[in-house]
């Protein structure tokens, strides 16, 4: 081939934050599999047979993206942890807009209203002292010469500052399950603002083990009035039965938390549900969505008739996305738990 000497991939950007944010969203395991194509990167993390998370990273996040297709598919496994550490070496790719956290691998359980996702307290002082509101960005040049080569990442803070080169080992990927979601076998399809789901995940009791998603189609029979319920609460329940609703149920040691999302225009962008759907999921897997939801705008939640769940999380569009394009999507897929009863 003529382009034998050309690297398979050269990608450049002057701000790694969007890239790092997508990768962090799926940072649930040390290793990930990266697949390069004309469209960008697809980075997959899989927890054996239970959970699959994919970050679709489009080329529009980069100022330049050159892909020379090699004879074999451009796929390799690498250390996601290390790449995230590298991207944040200058502290400009942290999890919050103020660039605080470095290793947000440890997920902290918190109660609602405890404020936004913090970070390493240890680092906070230094960031506050060091930045003083100065907007600094880390630029990146990523290069991969092909199978058997390291993934080389060159990072620089600004023109005079230090530069960092990272050589990430790449290995041949393990086989991925990556079960496909069957669009034709769909039982529920809804689109709503990420905030709604993120707030719900905040409220989940730490002790809960099981999350149940329930969706009822519009025009369901109005449930019998509960004794002791107020007039307005009965009214609300009647309204929800009328328009259809989505419900998240978390069972914990100390009781049940129930969150209702009526199919109102200000809540649901789209709500397709033909008949009642009820499936349960492992809450520790479901809670992993929380980090991915950070800074996202919308989610699309789909459930197959078998209970197979697929949640797609959309990141805010940047100026280069173009019509019909996107600026990064995270996808989580998991199977439903067997019903106990």
């Amino acid at each position: 081939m003529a382009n034998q000497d050309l690297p398979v991939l050269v990608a450049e950007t002057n701000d790694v934050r969007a890239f790092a944010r997508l990768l962090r969203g799926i940072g649930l395991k040390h290793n990930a599999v990266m697949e390069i194509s004309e469209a960008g990167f697809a980075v997959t993390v899989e927890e054996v047979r239970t959970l699959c998370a994919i970050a679709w990273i489009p080329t529009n996040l980069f100022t330049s993206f050159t892909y020379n297709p090699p004879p074999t598919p451009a796929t390799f496994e690498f250390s996601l942890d290390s790449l995230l550490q590298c991207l944040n070496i200058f502290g400009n790719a942290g999890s919050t807009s103020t660039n605080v956290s470095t290793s947000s691998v440890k997920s902290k359980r918190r109660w609602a209203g405890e404020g936004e996702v913090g970070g390493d307290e240890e680092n906070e002082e230094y960031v506050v002292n060091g930045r003083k509101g100065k907007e600094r960005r880390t630029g990146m040049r990523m290069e991969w010469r092909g199978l058997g080569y390291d993934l080389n990442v060159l990072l620089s803070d600004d023109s005079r500052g230090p530069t960092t080169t990272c050589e990430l080992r790449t290995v041949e990927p393990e086989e991925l399950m990556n079960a496909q979601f069957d669009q034709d076998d769909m039982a529920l399809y809804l689109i709503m603002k990420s905030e709604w789901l993120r707030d719900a995940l905040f409220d989940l009791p730490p002790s809960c083990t099981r999350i149940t998603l329930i969706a009822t189609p519009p025009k369901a029979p109005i449930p019998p009035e509960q004794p002791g319920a107020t007039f307005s609460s009965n009214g609300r329940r009647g309204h929800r039965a009328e328009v259809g609703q989505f419900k998240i149920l978390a069972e914990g040691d100390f009781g049940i938390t129930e969150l209702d999302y009526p199919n109102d225009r200000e809540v649901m962008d789209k709500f397709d549900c033909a008949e009642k759907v009820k499936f349960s999921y492992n809450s520790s897997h479901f809670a992993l969505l929380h980090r991915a939801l950070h800074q996202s705008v919308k989610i699309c939640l789909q459930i197959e008739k078998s209970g197979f769940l697929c949640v797609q999380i959309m990141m805010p569009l940047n100026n280069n996305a173009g019509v019909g394009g996107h600026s990064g999507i995270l996808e989580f897929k998991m199977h439903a738990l067997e019903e106990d009863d």
Partner: protein
Amino acid sequence: MRFRTGISNVALLHKITRSLAALARSCVIRLSPDQVHFIVPGNESSTGVQVWSQVKVATLFDAYKIESNANNEIWVELHLDSLLKVLRSADSSVGSITESKSTAALTESDVTLKLNKKGQQPIWAFEIRGYTAQRKPMSITHEIPVKILSPKRQAELNEPLCPQPDIHVVLPNLLELRNIVSRLSHLADDVKVSANHEGRLELTAKSSRVNLTTTWNELNVPTANSNEEEQPLPPPDHMFTVSVAIKGFLKFLTSHLVGGTAIACICEDHCLIAYVYIGELNEAGGVLTFFIPAKITDD
């Protein structure tokens, strides 16, 4: 044995103590008529990092009086934790720049330090005096136990002997460096510090999954002023390298609090020496010297 002084720069003494407290639980302070030496011997800290620093008396103290039978020198050993607590209180009372809005601040305040004896126990007595916002006079006294070092113990404390350093290099901003090194600590245990005469400094962390190198260019390389004729100059691009434990390196970097210029010296396969100057380089009020032992690696 008499010792009595006013502390003119409480904030600086506080910062020095904070840097040292990151390293060890206790430290030796050698007081002489014109210098104060802060010493953390190697066996005090888990990483083997040692500190041998000297600060001019005038940088920290005023109305300084010292008398003893041993060249008017007094060596004391104390717990850094207790010293830190006193200085935190003194610092907020004096209302230094960082905590100017502290409600505990006193006006016209001054801090004095005396060596006293309480029964058989020698103590350092700090007295903070001033006026409250209501113009009431106020005086706060803290006492911390200290140990007076015997001449035998003094003789046992020796500054580590190091070969002539291979290269000196002025380090970039210590805070910036600290932030980067603390991120490297998630990836590896050791860091390779290399520098050459072109002003290039490299920090390399290696693990099974990633090799990471951060490079600075155009740093100042002060030329050694002695024995220049004896040794032929090495090629300017030759990298001198030493591997140190990241933990130890980070402990030295806590001295970014003191906020001066820092120079690193590499003694290949022996140690990394870092000098943190207090104040400007040419009129330095003192220098903190950190010895970070090298780790011998296979490659």
